[in-house]
């Protein structure tokens, strides 16, 4: 990544090539860098042809689920009977994740170009870019870029709109985002129907993540084979990925590496390792919603969709949260649970009540009042919160609790047995 530090030799700067270049934010600057060429070309192609290239590239959704992008686009009705919509999920709110923010800050036109190409591919005349409400600077950058590009007429008949979120994590869930765009409360919807059948305003809709779409112009430009060739490992994970690294590393920030890059190298070479005198304890590899990896798992983990699953977690959004040996895991897990309890949309019983109860139990354990039975209760609650609700917010709260208890049980037991000084939790 070009900002705020020079790219590390082990990085593969594709998406982040122009990060840090103020000129790249302008329409003229972007055109100078080859921008909007691919859009102009794509608009002359059959939509199905564009989908084929993206399918061939193996590009998968960068928002967390990793669903093949071309396949998702191909779910849209071939014969258009109703208006089609594209939604761009720029509601990046996953704790530990801040890659889309940088794409919007530095290369807004990459996103706009990718979105317009996607809209063409799915025969949508309108694209809504739903930007997290707290993203004030990216909002301003995106607004300016959209105005410039629209004035230049590059989008043809496609209309792009920015829609600003109002501060709810759940609005990053695709169907909640659609409700929010419609002006409704941001509650996830029951699926089916899936968005390709009935999405925003009940019309066929595709929703893609910012990073996914920003990669699309490059794939068209350099070809599917090039993109696939960037991967170091599994043929199922292709291209490059931005990883947001935070926590106990000496150089936190966004790093762009190819799929299959070793997590250990990311943390120790690119990010400079944990602070001096400390040792690595644990790592959340894909945003706060995925299971925690312990040191051994972290050190042996390859960063692609399959590699992280092999270690018992998920690649998720690529938000890497690093914990060194000074970390109180019980406290960290409580903080995560508290976040989910705060953000639960309150629809499903297990999530509304379960996230809050989980938080209370963890707070009590930290305060030294925990009971031995609390750990089994937490696990049983987590079981009730997993796979039983409309969306996965509840599962996301359960994941770190279950992996935390499994991998760091001693720390919980120390609090419960009074071997560890209680922590005041406010």
């Amino acid at each position, binding site marked *: 990544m070009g900002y705020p530090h020079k790219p590390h030799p082990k990085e593969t700067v594709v998406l982040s090539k122009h990060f840090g270049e103020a000129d790249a934010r302008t329409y003229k600057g972007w055109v100078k860098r080859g921008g909007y060429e691919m859009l102009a070309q794509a608009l002359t192609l059959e939509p199905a042809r564009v989908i084929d290239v993206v399918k061939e590239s193996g590009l998968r959704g960068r928002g967390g689920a990793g669903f093949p992008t071309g396949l998702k686009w191909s779910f849209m009705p071939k014969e258009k009977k109703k208006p089609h919509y594209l939604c761009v999920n720029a509601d990046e709110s996953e704790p530990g994740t801040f890659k889309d923010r940088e794409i919007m800050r530095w290369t807004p036109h990459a996103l706009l170009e990718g979105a317009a190409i996607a809209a063409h591919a799915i025969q949508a005349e309108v694209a809504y870019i739903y930007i997290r409400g707290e993203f004030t600077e990216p909002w301003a950058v995106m607004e300016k870029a959209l105005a410039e590009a629209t004035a230049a007429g590059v989008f043809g008949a496609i209309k792009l709109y920015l829609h600003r979120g109002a501060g709810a994590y759940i609005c990053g869930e695709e169907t909640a985002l659609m409700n929010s765009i419609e002006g409704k409360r941001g509650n996830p919807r029951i699926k089916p129907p899936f968005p390709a059948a009935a999405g925003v305003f009940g019309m066929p809709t595709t929703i893609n993540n910012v990073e996914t779409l920003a990669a699309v112009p490059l794939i068209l430009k350099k070809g599917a084979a090039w993109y696939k060739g960037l991967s170091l490992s599994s043929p199922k994970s292709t291209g490059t990925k931005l990883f947001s690294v935070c926590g106990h590393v000496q150089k936190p920030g966004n790093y762009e590496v190819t799929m299959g890059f070793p997590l250990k190298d990311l943390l120790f070479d690119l990010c400079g390792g944990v602070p001096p005198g400390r040792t690595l304890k644990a790592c959340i590899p894909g945003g706060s919603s995925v299971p925690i990896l312990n040191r051994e798992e972290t050190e042996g983990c390859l960063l692609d969709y399959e590699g992280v699953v092999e270690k018992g977690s998920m690649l998720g959004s690529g938000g890497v949260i690093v914990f060194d040996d000074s970390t109180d895991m019980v406290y960290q897990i409580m903080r995560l649970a508290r976040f989910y309890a705060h953000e*639960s949309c*309150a629809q499903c019983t297990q999530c509304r*009540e379960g996230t*809050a*109860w989980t938080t209370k139990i963890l707070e009590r354990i930290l305060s030294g009042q925990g009971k031995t*039975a609390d750990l089994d209760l937490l696990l049983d609650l987590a079981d009730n919160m997993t796979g039983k609700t*409309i969306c996965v917010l509840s599962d996301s709260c359960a994941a770190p609790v279950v992996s935390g208890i499994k991998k760091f049980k001693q720390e919980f037991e120390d609090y419960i047995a009074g071997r560890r000084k209680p922590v005041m939790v406010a």
Partner: protein
Amino acid sequence: MADELVNLTIDGVPVSVPKGTLVIEAAKQAGVLVPHYCYHPGLPVAGVCRMCLVDIEKAPKLQIACATQVAEGMVVRTQSPQAKSGRMGVLELLLINHPLDCPICDQAGECELQDFTFQEGRPATRYSPDYAKRFNPVEDFGPDVLYVPNRCILCTRCVRFMEDVAKEPVLNVSERGDRAFIGIHSDGRLDHPWAGNVVDLCPVGSLLSKDFLHKARAWELDKAASICTGCSQGCNVTLDTRENVVVRVRPRPNLDVNRYFICDHGRMNYRWMNRGDRIEAPLVRRDGELHATDWDEALDVVASRLGGAGGKTVALVSPKASTEALFFARELFRGHEWSGAFQVVMGEEAPLAGVPNLALRAERAPNGRGAELLGYGRDYASALAAAETAAVVLVLDEPDIAVRTAGKLVYVGTVLPERARDAEVVLPIANVAEEEGTFVNRDGRVQRYFQAKPAPGMARPAWWVFAELVATLQGGGHVATAADAFDRLAVSVDAFRGLSYGQLGFAGAPAPAAAVPA
């Protein structure tokens, strides 16, 4: 297409249901009630309470029966260990913030949270008493609705009713997470003419009727199927009585008439059924005064007056009278020069926007259509004028008799209005809650109502009174039951031909000649 049937088994019971049926509805056909809270057949599916989790073979995880459509060959298990454990988990979570104040809660005894917890919940909670429960004060939502947020399980039935059925979205879910509660628009009131339905829809004691507040425990109530007398719509209702006092009116589902709902006007239209100033014995005029007597004498007096009467006869009847009573009252004057009329009190119409052909009708007359089919006219003013010169004036429970009737009035009614005090004979009758009978609604649907409480004193159903008089004057035998009365009507009047009281059942049936609204 709708007739395409899908075969599946639910808890081992094979069922065939139309394509598109939800598993929760298919289960009812298999005799299985899947526990649920947010699902209601009269509302759009929300799928939020997650209570109806069931095991479906080949599905990777538990599914909610309320949002899953049936498929050919589907195997549903509601009692698998996984399904039961999933639902037990939901029940435990619903109760952690619940105050468990059942002893002072109006819903106790008819509470679905109680019922399903008793059926398949945990015997004890694991929620430590150290943890606070969510607290929000009681809120006054509208003229008849209180919201007790602490008992709320956020099933959102009330929100969906107001939004999708009443089309007046004044309620919402406010806040997030376990702080959530049902909110009301800051400038809004729950005063829609159909708002009271949210109280019935609420599966717990969170939305309460002020009118019913602390009136009775659910297990003290007796229930009778009835028909609302509030207007000509003919909504099916249940009359709840406690110790023979009507204390509550609730909707009784009928998909052809009122679906699952009644309006607030109908809901509150019951106090008169408990009036204390009733006529409790037949009265006959002797020496210028009305004297109580027995039925034999009273009927003899009426029969002799009618038998000897020449000239015009006029009947002024209430459109709240049963079809059977109106029929025999008409039969009574067979061979006489007769005119009969009813008058209809008018009010404001209040439709329920989300349900076609359902409204509080302007005509506040439950049986106006029945009276019409039997030959009674709507020109009440002319009938009143005719009464001036009539030889006999028969009034059936109609207080508006603003003519001079001395010497010729036979008053048959529940109460004795001032104007009826110069009657020759007064015959006490039962009101709608005290007898069986039928009404014909505005669309020509004949519907039965059942007895909810005994009539006071010697009061009898009006159809019995008139049938006795007909038997005395014209022969043809006694009529012992409402069923006999209806069957006599059905063989005599074309508009009802082919119907039988038994077949009407609880849901009613369209009168053959009355399918087209008047």
